[in-house]
């Protein structure tokens, strides 16, 4: 499984031929079949949309806010750890943090969003 965490940041891939980006990273572009290069993603992004989960699958502890964030050239879904639904708006800026996984045993570290 290709995971996107590199130290305290997130990584994506860029196709060396057509420039398409992939998140999480992958070795080859499916359109060109060309090799990709890994790129570091910005540490801040913009909220495209969001929700607040109240019924989950037993492993995550509701309520928690989830969002899709435009992070440079890719879109990244994730949990926003410091906001409620009523605090959030489309276009909000969020920062990426990497820390010990709050909900699952694996992977042991994971990324989260912090509303600024």
């Amino acid at each position, binding site marked *: 499984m290709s995971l996107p965490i590199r130290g305290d940041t997130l990584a994506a891939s860029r196709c060396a031929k057509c420039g398409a980006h992939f998140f*999480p990273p992958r070795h080859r572009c499916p359109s060109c079949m060309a090799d990709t290069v890994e790129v570091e993603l910005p540490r801040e992004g913009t909220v495209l*949309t969001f*929700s607040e*989960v109240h*019924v989950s*699958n037993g*492993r995550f502890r509701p309520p928690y806010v989830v*969002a*899709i964030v435009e992070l440079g050239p890719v879109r990244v879904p994730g949990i926003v750890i410091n906001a409620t639904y009523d605090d959030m708006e*489309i276009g909000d800026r969020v920062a990426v943090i990497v820390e010990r996984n709050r909900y699952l045993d694996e992977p042991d570290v994971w990324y989260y969003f912090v509303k600024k």
Partner: protein
Amino acid sequence: MFITYTVEIGMNVYIISMGMSKIGKRKESSKELFFEALTEALQGVDPRDIDAVYVGVQSETYEHQIMYGSLVSEYGGLLFREAYRVEACAASGALALHTAYMAVRSGVARVALAVGVEKMTAKGTEEVTDALMAASDYVLDQLNGITIPAHYAMLATRYMRLYGATEEDLCAVAVKNHENASLNPKAHFQKRITLEECLRSRPVARPLKVMDSAPISDGAAVALVAGEDVARKLTDTPVRILASVVVADTLSISQRPDPLWPRAVWEAAARAYRQAGIGPRDVGIAEVHDAFTINEVLMYEALGFAERGKGYLLVREGETQRGGRIPVNVSGGLKARGHPVGATGLAQIYELYLHLTGRAGKRQVNARYGLALNEGGVNSTAVAHILAV
């Protein structure tokens, strides 16, 4: 090289008979629910005529069971035929019909049985949520706790802000579908709900609430499919499958250029209209995948019933209620007819079949063309059927 080509092959394909179990919280297992539906479908048809069986089932989690092809063949007295399971989450039922259609059209089977079935209520809500979450991207969605309802909720959040729809507009879809189901004796719920009840119901994934959401249900539906020669011999009321189309999109809505545009639904519908030689204005009745109220609205737009950003106005103006310009989810939809996931696609077809053959009782809509749009994941696999008499 990139090749475009068209193939014209095969014969006209018909539904010759259908059956559906009562949908709801049932004590029976999935094979028993299947047999209840089969019994209805076999009135006037000899089971020895069936020579292939395709079964749509979402998950092995609920009954700790795979091998549904053999399972239903054995329980239905249909052994030693071609029989297997097909799966695209909540689109599994329509996928089974598509497979039966292909088998008949290609000559692999003369009479094919499409089955959709799911037995879900023995598991709790968290377990069902987890089993359905398997339809989303593992890294992007599942590791982030983004449930399937949360995906639809994120669509609702953005839709409401971009186009001015309100939580009242979404609840109005649920109110309409419950009103329809009050006339459907096989529906999970026969009770009407008010807008206030919906708005007051507990949140599932904000802004979506319990009453914006389809219930967890048990049920089964089946269709017998045959070519024109066989159909004319076995029934006086064949319903022609004018189009049967399957289209795939990304698992995660985050990977779509415009998350609010369910492109697989639009592609499936556009190809189905082309196959059938009709357009959206010709559709007299439609069953669409209202797993959550927001999705019925998104489908109005992708199916060409409304312009982009204006789907919610169809409900406000009553255009999709019974007696409206284009009645949608007259069965009650997933919301109120119920949503036994693998059975849903064929439950939609069953509703169209009843109307097109004049057997829908108090909720009868007279139509020449019916459209069903069944999807799995979050519009990640779309299956469109157009039926006609």
